[in-house]
């Protein structure tokens, strides 16, 4: 999805700041424009400010500074119950004293909808998540995945334009989590509702989102599609946070066009794509994805000596920890194919990478 401008943003954070104690800003000058129908994920480690942003959008926290707009209207002074935003909570927050049907009916009742219409909508919402048979159960009688579906149905039953999800899959086991990721994604595609999703799980963010906003330290580090985020990280934090990454720290010797020559602590030189590395003399972090490293005789460009330190057998591939340019945490993913047995702990070989695949970023 292309970048959304401030004017046609459905949800707009305009220079939003938030502080709880008046000393530390947990959200620093946030500008984020979310398009209608978009699935946007706020991804970041805990304490990065992503949940605070979601809570400000939902109305449970107030912005210390700046405006939040929904459909072009500022909502800073609108209480949460008048915002009409659906929300799925981390632990589902299904009302334990009500049945599934009563839970779903609740948002319709407070909207003074009549009984037949309510029943119709509740039934349709339950069918949507394939939970029609559970209408008379209590939440405590449901499994985690089933509760998750009910929470999802409840957030959608009153047909909001915007649904917020606060780490909704955090309590599920891995298999169920992956299954629910697809279900949420498909629901989003089918209903065309705008979703703002908060998670600290990067694979979840990459699987589901149109765009991902990577948060750290109260700032969006990068806002991009999952592909761009992985392939073209713009700074060392994003490169490290998304996917697996090899980091080499060095100093820029010179920048020609978009290629940087970097001197590593060992004295060796390597070339990298200059992304965010400053000028000659600046410190830089080189980021190389483990699957982009070539091994042995095929190592052409930027080839250097490497020593195998550890081998971890993972079935379809082998993780190989090596010493490269003095870095002992250098990981190479080797496909499990013929000739793999040549790799032995302690054996010496060559590694190399294309200049294009090595990104020179800021100093982390």
């Amino acid at each position, binding site marked *: 999805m292309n970048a959304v401008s401030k004017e046609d943003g459905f949800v707009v954070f305009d220079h939003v700041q938030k502080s709880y104690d008046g000393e530390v800003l947990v959200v620093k000058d946030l500008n984020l424009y979310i398009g209608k129908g978009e699935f946007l994920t706020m991804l970041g480690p805990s304490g990065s400010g992503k949940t605070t942003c979601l809570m400000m959008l*939902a*109305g*449970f926290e107030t912005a210390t500074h700046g405006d939040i707009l929904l459909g072009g209207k500022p909502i800073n002074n609108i*209480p*949460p*119950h*008048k*915002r*009409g*935003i*659906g*929300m799925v*909570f*981390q*632990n589902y*927050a299904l*009302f*334990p*004293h009500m049945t599934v049907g009563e839970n779903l009916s*609740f*948002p319709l009742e*407070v*909207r003074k909808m009549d009984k037949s219409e309510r029943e119709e909508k509740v039934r349709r919402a339950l069918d949507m998540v394939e939970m029609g048979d559970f209408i008379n159960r209590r939440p405590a009688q449901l499994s985690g995945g089933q509760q998750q579906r009910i929470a999802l149905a*409840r*957030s959608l039953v*009153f047909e909001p334009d915007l649904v*917020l999800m606060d780490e909704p899959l955090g309590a599920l086991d891995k298999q169920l989590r992956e299954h629910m990721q697809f279900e949420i994604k498909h629901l989003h595609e089918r209903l065309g509702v705008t979703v703002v999703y908060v998670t600290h799980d990067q694979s979840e963010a990459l699987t589901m989102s149109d765009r991902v906003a990577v948060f750290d330290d109260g700032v969006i580090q990068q806002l991009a599609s999952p592909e761009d985020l992985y392939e073209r990280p713009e700074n060392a934090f994003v490169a490290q946070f998304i996917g697996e990454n090899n980091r080499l720290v060095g100093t820029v010797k010179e920048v020609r066009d978009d290629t940087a020559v970097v001197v590593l602590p060992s004295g060796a030189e390597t070339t990298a794509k200059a992304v965010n590395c400053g000028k000659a003399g600046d410190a830089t972090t080189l980021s190389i994805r483990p699957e982009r490293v070539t091994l042995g005789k095929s190592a052409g460009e930027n080839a250097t000596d490497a020593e195998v330190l550890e081998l971890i057998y993972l079935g379809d591939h082998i993780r190989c920890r090596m010493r490269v340019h003095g870095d002992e945490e250098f990981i190479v993913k080797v496909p499990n194919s013929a000739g793999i047995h040549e790799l032995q702990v302690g054996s010496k070989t060559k590694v190399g990478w294309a200049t294009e695949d090595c990104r020179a970023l800021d100093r982390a």
Partner: protein
Amino acid sequence: MTDASGPIVTADGIPLKRKLARALFRSRARAFGLAFPLIAFIIAAFIIPLISLLWQGVHDPRYATYMPRSAAAVANWDTVSPITEKMAAAMVADLVEARKSRMIGRVATRVNRELPGSRSLFTSSARVAKKMKPPYLEALVKKSKKWGQLATWRAVKISAKVYTPAYLANAVDLKYNADGSFSLQDTKHRINLKLLGRTLQISLIVTLACLLLGYPVAYMLSTLPTRTSNLLLILVLLPFWTSLLVRTTAWIAMLQSQGVINDLFVLFGVTTDAERFSMIYNKTGVLIAMTHILLPFMILPLYSVMKTIPPSYVRAAKSMGAHPSTAFWRVYFPQSVPGIGAGALLVFILAIGYYITPALVGGQDGQMISNIIDFHMRKSLNWNLAAALGLVLLVVVMFFFWIYDRVVGIDNMKLG
């Protein structure tokens, strides 16, 4: 799993159920062993004394033990036909015997409860009974005209019963008659039901006041960060660490007519110096002091329940469009009901048997049922009636417990 028809057996051929029972027995025996000292203590120090004391409410063998002949003689008397010589002879023989064994005082006390004035009749008659000659009825009537009255002999018939409903009847303002019927107590003696009603009324008001005052406090405590709430919880508990007597007398200092609160009222012109409010030594004083003393018992269960209600429930309700008050009443409040139930039941049951506070600040119209029990235990020495009153109180508490179980459900209660 292989053979569905027969019972499942373990590897060594013993049926699984027996093996399991054996394994469970050991852990149960261990658990019982750990609890045994406390169980033994409770049985010895609480259950046995309680039962033996309450037993006195329906069991009074004094007359039948020390005056067996007359007890047997009146047993078949129909309470209306004339007194027979046989009854009189048995009575004289018993009086002689009881005086000899020095038990006449006890017997006289017992009969006196059924017919005031009988005490001296029995003790004085016993003194001269030895010299009486037949016909005994004439001799008795010569000693006192009362022996010729049916009322005296009816009192004897009631007293002669070993198992008697007389005290229980008395406890609920009824009179047990010699012919086995019940009638209302004389108006001037009808006090127990009034006291019981007042006790229930005070307990209900105190429970309600504690709920109204405690609910917002518990809510605030449950929403604050743990450090602050722990500090404030200590303030809630502070009264627990102060003697009950000190707290009650502190209220006397506060509420009396020359006390702090009345002084403030006069200062701010709420009342004049001549018309100070009387807030102590009456029901008002009891209500204020008891609400204060019992408040922690309401706050603690409420707090412990509210602490477990995640804030996300109310948030979820609001996000679905519920007005904050709707979110409270439909989502938060129902989940706090177990705490309300526990707190209310605790406060009510404590209040219904409250003694020291009404005794100290109750005055005339602030006395409760426990105060009259105390009166019978220490002043009138009518332990049987005290026991009967205690039994009535126990039944009332059980009744409210039952109501609570029907309405809220005892398994819905949560004490923490």
